[in-house]
């Protein structure tokens, strides 16, 4: 089941902002052009009360006031009105519509649906008391809380290139939520957190897992640690449902970060996630979108997600008409194939530190597993 409504595109920080609604427009038009678009379920917007299940009232009040164009003196304290997360008219409702989509996904899972793809959301940086990093309300946490309140054990998997800090902190002390984030190390990259030592507190200890990866990590190294960590953690935690934040910004073309995944790694990751869901959660999995700031790469990665999700065959080339239209609109060339170009015309120059990067990632994985094993494995 796919969840989507056109009003997701109201979540718009302006034409020069990287979190652009054009990504959704491009994606849905590509799926139409490929002839695979199926009528999605249109979710209701989340209510104020639903947002308040994971956010403070004082944050929500500020978002509401700023949405109405009122002047709020302490806005920056709440992470709003900054360069990254500026305010815009109607922001509160736009954010609640995205929350509504992910929450509807959770409801559908509870009603017996196995696979849900929410074509939006994934605002993993929003925190209890603070908007952050393009994220106003945390749709993922609202959905996760809805699932745990119904008695389910939730595993949250975050493949966005940035640490899923908001989701981690909101559920940091909860034992029924496993968070698992693979990201570029926060030594340099926003939000600076996601260290292996952040493993949860109180009842949540050992259930918050972070695998910070070296800048310039490539496909093989990523897949090596992913396949070692994710099934191990899911097998130990035994979740009822998997919630996946499918950020596409770990792609090598992304302008904001430094991991070097190609679409081939993304395809493998998405297929593995579906396999893991089959093996560990009875097939129950809820996908959301997330970050992804190269239009060219992000749209191809999310089209892959849509096709793999539905078990559809993957086309080699993208539809000519669609390419023509968008190249004209964006005034730049686009990759004409669904996948990135492959050797001999490699997509990016060789990374001299390749071996060292892979070794360091393995070492980080070992240290993380050592740290959480006593808590996670019974």
């Amino acid at each position, binding site marked *: 089941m796919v969840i989507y409504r056109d009003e997701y595109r109201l979540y718009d920080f302006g034409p020069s902002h*990287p979190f652009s609604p054009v990504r959704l427009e491009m994606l849905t038009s590509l799926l139409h052009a490929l002839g695979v678009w199926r009528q999605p379920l249109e979710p209701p917007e989340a209510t104020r009360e639903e947002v308040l299940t994971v956010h403070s009232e004082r944050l929500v009040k500020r978002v509401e006031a700023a949405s109405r164009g009122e002047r709020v003196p302490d806005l*920056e304290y709440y992470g709003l009105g*900054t*360069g*990254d997360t500026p305010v815009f008219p109607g922001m509160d409702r736009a954010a609640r519509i995205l929350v509504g989509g992910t929450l509807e996904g959770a409801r559908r899972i509870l009603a017996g649906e196995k696979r849900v793809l929410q074509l939006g959301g994934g605002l993993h*940086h929003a925190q209890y008391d603070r908007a*952050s*990093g*393009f994220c106003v309300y945390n749709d993922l946490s609202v959905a996760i809380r809805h699932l745990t309140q119904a008695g389910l054990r939730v595993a949250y998997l975050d493949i966005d290139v*940035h640490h899923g*800090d908001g989701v981690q902190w909101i559920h940091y002390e909860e034992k029924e939520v496993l968070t698992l984030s693979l990201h570029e190390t926060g*030594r*340099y*990259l*926003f*939000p*600076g*957190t996601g260290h292996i030592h952040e493993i949860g507190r109180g009842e949540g200890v050992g259930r918050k897992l972070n695998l910070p990866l070296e*800048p310039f990590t490539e496909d093989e190294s990523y897949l090596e640690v992913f396949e070692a960590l994710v099934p191990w953690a899911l097998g130990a935690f035994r979740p009822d449902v998997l919630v996946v934040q499918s950020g596409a910004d770990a792609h*090598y*073309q992304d*302008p*904001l*970060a*430094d991991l070097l995944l190609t679409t081939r790694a993304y395809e493998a990751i998405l297929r593995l996630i579906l396999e893991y869901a089959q093996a560990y959660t009875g097939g129950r999995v809820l996908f959301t979108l997330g970050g992804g700031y190269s239009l060219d790469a992000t749209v191809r990665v999310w089209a892959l997600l849509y096709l793999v999700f539905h078990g559809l065959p993957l086309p080699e080339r993208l539809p000519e008409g669609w390419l023509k239209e968008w190249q004209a609109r964006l005034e730049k060339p686009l990759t004409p194939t669904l996948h990135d170009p492959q050797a001999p015309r490699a*997509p*990016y*120059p060789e990374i001299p530190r390749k071996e060292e990067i892979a070794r360091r990632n393995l070492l980080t994985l070992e240290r993380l597993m050592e740290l959480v094993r006593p808590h996670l494995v019974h």
Partner: protein
Amino acid sequence: MLVKDVMRSPVLTVEPGMTLEEAYRFLLEKGIRHLPVVAEGKLVGILTDRDLRLAMSHLNPGGPLPGSTPVAAAMTRKVVTAHPLDPVEEAARVMREGKIGCLPVLEDGRLVGMVTGIDLLDALLKLTGVTEPSGRLEVRLPDRVGELARLTGFLAERGVNIHSLLSYPEDGGFVRAVVRVNTLETHLLAEGLRQEGFEVIWPPKKPW
């Protein structure tokens, strides 16, 4: 950042007449490693867990002291101290040069706090701004008037808030500035900075 901002208070103290055995139990119970010794309101010495263990060990040059010995016999009498208004970097320097693990903080002769190596690490964490969601920029600037202002001016113009800014001298007439900024867009900032002629060390320029 001053010593008063990072010191711990109130301070747990003992009297010179307390026995070594009592003092050791006290350290274990409170989970601390440094004990200031106070007599009639005045600091007269300091006793570390290491002093205690050595005093009661057969490795003690004068032979092991019995557990009933008063702490006055094992404490260090010449104590290096700090003032609440000392800058933290000065406290760090004194501790590093003296190879000591803590500084009692005195004001008008009264013991008002303690600074340990751990407190200085906390101060360092705070100075680097890593506790706020942020990205990191590293820029090499010529060591001359106005360069840092040019950098911060550039960030201000882009609406980027600076959580922390550390700078330190580098060989060859340069200053390295490490800035934690509240933005995901450090790559775009770096690109803009390079266009303005700045030498950006991190994030690196991607060759594709």
